[in-house]
């Protein structure tokens, strides 16, 4: 079953048995850094297409990607990529993966063509084909003559695009993009997101986009896996996850908030105070706005503002992370 399919997905429950339509399957994966649990019995599945890997800093996103690449050895559990166990067949797995690291990285003294071709050759491509593919990949990420300049002289945006080109050169079936819009200006960000969309929707490349920028994920991905404190706190299609949020209202009160929040909780509804002093209320199980007024009345506060909200990924994420703690 695709955990993202349908609206009945419970984002807080671990997924059931994974099926072959998933490109990546992770089962009870635990990674320890000394005493810290970077991943804590994480179980998730990544369907085909573009999947966002969401989580705040330190949630375990990069650790998960690095485990899938075979850089980290799991302390327990297992993971497979395209049906191949990453612990058993790391080289075969990496042959199928293109990885765009988060950090600034390059090989000194090389121009973009030499760098991308060299990394293509390291994947086993014959030299002539690697050079041809390097030009194609660089052309695709919109490099002109600057491809012949030393990579060290590039701007952040250009370096990001070279990193994408090197990840693409050997024609991988899965792309791991770790914070691909880091350090990009708005135009560069739009271009990068456009490339990611094109790759996943038209070039049949499966994309795993690790980011803490929810808008980037929402603009490019159809599914998400959410991590918090090393645990999978939600997964599924973005649309389905938004649906699970039920009806969402934005409320402003006159009076003390705490009794109202308590009254909402007693009625089985979620109410969260936002940064701008408003309260987001999620109503489920057919409950309507009268529940809000009822709670306000019982807690002695006045409702001064009530607007129906379109649930965003941010709402879904905030709730999932909150529940995961």
């Amino acid at each position, binding site marked *: 079953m695709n955990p993202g399919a349908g609206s009945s997905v419970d984002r807080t429950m671990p997924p059931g048995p994974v099926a072959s339509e998933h490109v990546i399957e992770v089962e009870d994966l635990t990674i320890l*850094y*000394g*005493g*810290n649990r970077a991943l804590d019995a994480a179980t998730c599945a990544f369907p085909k297409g573009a999947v966002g890997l969401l989580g705040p800093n330190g949630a375990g996103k990069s650790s998960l990607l*690095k485990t899938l*690449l075979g*850089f*980290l050895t799991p302390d327990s559990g297992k993971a497979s990529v395209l049906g191949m166990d990453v612990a058993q067949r790391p*080289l*075969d797995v*990496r*042959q199928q*993966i293109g*990885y765009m*690291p988060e*950090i*600034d*990285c*390059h*090989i*000194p*003294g090389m121009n973009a063509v030499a760098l991308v071709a*060299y*990394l293509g*050759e*390291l*994947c*086993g*491509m*014959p030299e002539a*084909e690697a050079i041809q*593919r390097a030009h*194609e*990949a660089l*052309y*695709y*990420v*919109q490099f002109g003559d600057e491809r012949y300049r030393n990579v060290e002289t590039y701007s952040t945006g250009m370096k990001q695009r070279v990193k994408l080109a*090197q990840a*693409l*050169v*050997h*024609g991988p079936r899965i792309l791991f993009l770790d914070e691909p819009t880091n350090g990009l200006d708005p135009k560069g960000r739009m271009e990068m997101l456009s490339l990611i969309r*094109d*790759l996943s929707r*038209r*070039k*049949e490349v499966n994309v795993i986009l690790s980011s803490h920028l929810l808008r980037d994920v929402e603009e490019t991905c159809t599914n998400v896996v959410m991590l918090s404190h090393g645990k999978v706190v939600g997964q599924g299609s973005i649309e389905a996850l938004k649906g699970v949020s039920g009806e969402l209202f934005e409320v402003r009160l006159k009076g003390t908030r705490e009794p109202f929040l308590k009254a909402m909780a007693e009625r089985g509804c979620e109410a969260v105070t936002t940064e701008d002093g408003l309260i987001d209320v999620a109503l489920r199980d057919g409950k309507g706005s009268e529940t809000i007024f009822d709670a306000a009345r019982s807690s002695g506060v006045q409702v001064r503002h009530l607007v129906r909200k379109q649930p965003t990924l941010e709402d879904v994420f905030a709730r999932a992370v909150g529940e995961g703690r």
Partner: protein
Amino acid sequence: MPIYDQTYRPYRGSFEPHTMRWWTIAKAGLKHYMSRKLFLLFLFIATIPAIVRGVLIWLSHQAAMTGFQIIDASFYRGYLTWQGPFLLLICIWPGAILIARDLKSNAIQLYLCRPLTRRDYVIGKFAIIAGIGTLLLPVPGLLLFLMEIGLSDNMDFVVNNYWLPLSILGYSAVVIAGAGLLALAASSMTKSGRYAGLLFFAIVFVSQMIGTVLRLITGNQAFIVLSLPEMVNQTGSLFFGGFGEQVYVIPSLTMYAALIALSLWVLKRRVKAVEIVT
């Protein structure tokens, strides 16, 4: 339709087998240095001793110069010993920067996210030093051996020294392996190529200093095995004879093997795709 839409397509070509993946790293490194004029100048200078030895061989076959130079195993050992400082320089540059600059630019992740093992990476880097070292030590040594055969009137030299080519190859391999791995280990300890070079230089000369000072203070000759150059010198006796004079061959070999093992251990610890800080 944007132009880039027409360009990216899945790769349908073949991939070469994994076994020789390290050669890609070695080839790129060798190509890089061979294209640098300063490096080529260095190689030319390093060839001068071989040319001089070639002239000596030629002169020794001239009727008027009979007895001028005896061509025997010590002649070839002398040549290889003479080339030691050049190998030392190769280990400092480019040897000591090979991994340090990858660490500085976070390139190791780029290597290891491909179907490439850490062993492939280290072998590829080592092969760069070994390739250049081969041009400095065994290749000219073997050419000088062939030159002597070519100029000889009879087969006496071959009959008496048939083992020399293997000795030249064996000694060169041992020296290059030790120096190359030590240089790479030093390179993996820091992100600065300069510091790595200094570290390598310090290991070589500090070891020699300690060995010499302890020998002078205690009067015990056994302390020479602490000196890296002396270890190499003693190892030479194993390949070219003179076992009787060099009494510390086995301890030196043991120390040398330990140094290689230590270098490999450091490389194993330091060459990683991710640095885990706990």
